[in-house]
């Protein structure tokens, strides 16, 4: 037969489009199930990928891998870490931030805020990449050695203490300890707000001062004792191996249960697990929507076959093979779900784009072509699966009975 199947295939697509456009409202309503299903599946998978990409890019931007060694307060041997601990760990290719925190009251005029005061070393900005100054400077080794009364405020702290002051550099802050000690500190720097997922929701009211200054002005903190040790590892090092070495060194110095090591990588894998669970959950909802959407297609195709019984009878009377009628209605179902799939993917892309624009820590737009392909494939498959039964019913109609149908 001269080009028979191809001619028919295209004509069937045209007939399907005509039928669908002839019942525009009904087609749209029928589509909605598939649209929602495809939308749900596409957004869930992509949102997970966008979140992971956001976190990963942040860690990459951080420029290093990190470990966080903390003491276990409840353990009898959970005493603070000492300079000797830091020295012992310094054999490893790592940077350790000596840091001690406490809480004080900070007073400027009428403003009085609870401040988290970190005593740290001048090299802190090199180790903790989240330290990024908006104005001023960080304290230097000379300030560190002399215990200079200088403070670098977080963005939130500067805002709370110096509301309406464009540049608080050089101004003084009174720090009051719970023991009643009062000392004036000069603001030498203001940090930027911490960007990204790690700082987006935190209200960080803190100030960094030289460790020596903290020891001097806050009584009750023994010199050379640390609650936790932030450790950074260069990107080219094997963080897992280093973590094992840190553990080996510390185990010789204190009880293995008296401290814990956390890593961002570990947190990330936890985050990934949560993401996967969420994806599975929402993906399941998407799958259910697709099923419901598919049943909608099934229903409307059965209605379509019934409505067009006479038309089917006529087409068969004029020489349409059962296969051709089957194809016609199958194509109609697939075109219907295919349009639903395209609308679903398009609205998912729009929604994801909006999310990336609006949510601060999701800043990498990821649209995996495989996800789009999968979503479209699933929508087409829905059309085939739920269209085949009504199409077979149409194909099996006897021409004369179909023509007699009222």
């Amino acid at each position, binding site marked *: *037969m*001269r*080009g*028979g*199947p191809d*001619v*028919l295939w295209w*004509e069937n697509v045209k007939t399907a489009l*005509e039928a669908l456009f*002839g019942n525009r409202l009904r087609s749209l309503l029928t589509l909605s199930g598939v649209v929602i299903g495809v939308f749900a599946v596409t957004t869930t998978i992509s949102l997970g990928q966008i979140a992971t990409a956001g976190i990963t890019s942040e860690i990459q931007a951080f420029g290093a891998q990190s470990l966080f060694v903390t003491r276990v307060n409840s353990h009898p041997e959970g005493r603070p870490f000492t300079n000797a601990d830091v020295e012992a760990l310094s054999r490893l290719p790592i940077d350790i931030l000596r840091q001690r925190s406490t809480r004080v009251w900070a007073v400027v005029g009428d403003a009085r805020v609870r401040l988290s005061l970190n005593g740290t070393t001048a090299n802190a900005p090199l180790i903790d990449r989240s330290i990024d100054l908006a104005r001023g400077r960080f304290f230097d080794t000379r300030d560190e050695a002399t215990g200079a009364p200088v403070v670098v405020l977080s963005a939130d702290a500067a805002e709370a203490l110096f509301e309406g002051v464009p540049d608080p550099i050089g101004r003084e802050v009174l720090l009051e300890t719970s023991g009643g000690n009062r000392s004036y500190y000069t603001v030498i720097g203001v940090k930027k707000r911490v960007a990204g997922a790690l700082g987006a929701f935190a209200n960080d009211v803190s100030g960094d001062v030289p460790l020596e200054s903290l020891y001097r002005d806050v009584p009750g903190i023994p010199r050379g004792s640390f609650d936790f040790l932030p450790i950074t590892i260069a990107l080219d090092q094997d963080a897992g191996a280093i973590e094992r070495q840190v553990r080996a060194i510390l185990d010789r110095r204190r009880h293995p249960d008296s401290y814990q090591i956390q890593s961002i990588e570990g947190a990330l894998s936890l985050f990934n697990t949560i993401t996967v669970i969420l994806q599975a959950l929402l993906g399941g909802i998407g799958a259910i929507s697709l099923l419901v959407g598919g049943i909608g297609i099934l229903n409307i195709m059965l209605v379509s076959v019934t409505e067009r019984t*006479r*038309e089917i009878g*006529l*087409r*068969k*009377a*004029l*020489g*349409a*093979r*059962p*296969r*051709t009628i089957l194809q016609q209605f199958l194509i109609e179902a697939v075109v219907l779900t295919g349009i639903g799939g395209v609308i679903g993917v398009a609205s998912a892309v729009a929604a994801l784009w909006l999310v990336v624009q609006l949510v601060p820590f999701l800043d990498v737009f990821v649209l995996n072509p495989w996800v789009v392909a999968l979503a479209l494939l699933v929508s087409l498959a829905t059309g085939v699966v739920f269209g085949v039964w009504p199409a077979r019913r149409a194909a099996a109609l*006897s*021409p*004369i009975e179909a*023509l007699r149908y009222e």
Partner: protein
Amino acid sequence: MAADAPRAAHAPGAAADDPVLEARDLRKVYVLGGGVEVHALRGVDLRVRRGEYAAIMGPSGSGKSTLLQILGCLDAPTAGSYRLAGDEVADLDESALAVVRNRRIGFVFQAYNLLPRATAVDNVALPLLYRGVSAARRRERALEALERVGLADRTHHRPNELSGGQKQRVAIARALAADPDILLADEPTGNLDSRTGQEILTLFDELHAEGRTILIVTHEHDVAEHCERIIRIHDGRVAASEPVVARRRPPGDARGA
């Protein structure tokens, strides 16, 4: 399969005794709800020669429409043999039957049965579509067929923009477009006023004059008298088969009786 048989087969006088249709002892039983059986055909024997122009007449419920539907391969007999151009129809599967309906039979319905959303030319082209003819060729042949039935100026009208007579002409053009062996018409003038009905019958007369085999089911004598032969059906059997003595002729028909 002689689907693309040369047009010469339709020429006047070609194998005049060759039965294009041959039915033997055709029976059709409808089983209604509750197991009630209705015997629509009770053993019909019928031969129709190539080029013949015959009317099937009978009262309502005589089985004449059922017979035409079986002859048109739209319905299957419960028992009996039906040979169309030598082929036993009972041996054909659904797909082969579709080919037969498409190529050998042109069926004209009382209610026209046009696709309401399609234009006249698209309606006429429909059988050609199922034959796999290309779009350009379909259009060409559909336009020829519409011109043949006198609707060259209505090719892009939809059925709701056409009169009853015009719709039936479109339906006849559709039956002609696929160039079938035989034309079967079920009460083709039943929904038309008498003047329009006459125009349609004149068209059938002309098509017969061109050599086509035509079978018309009717209950009107005026219609039947256009034909060469009247086959009378009564209670599901052929009660009589008689030549028409005083044929109504289309104006200008030069053929002798």
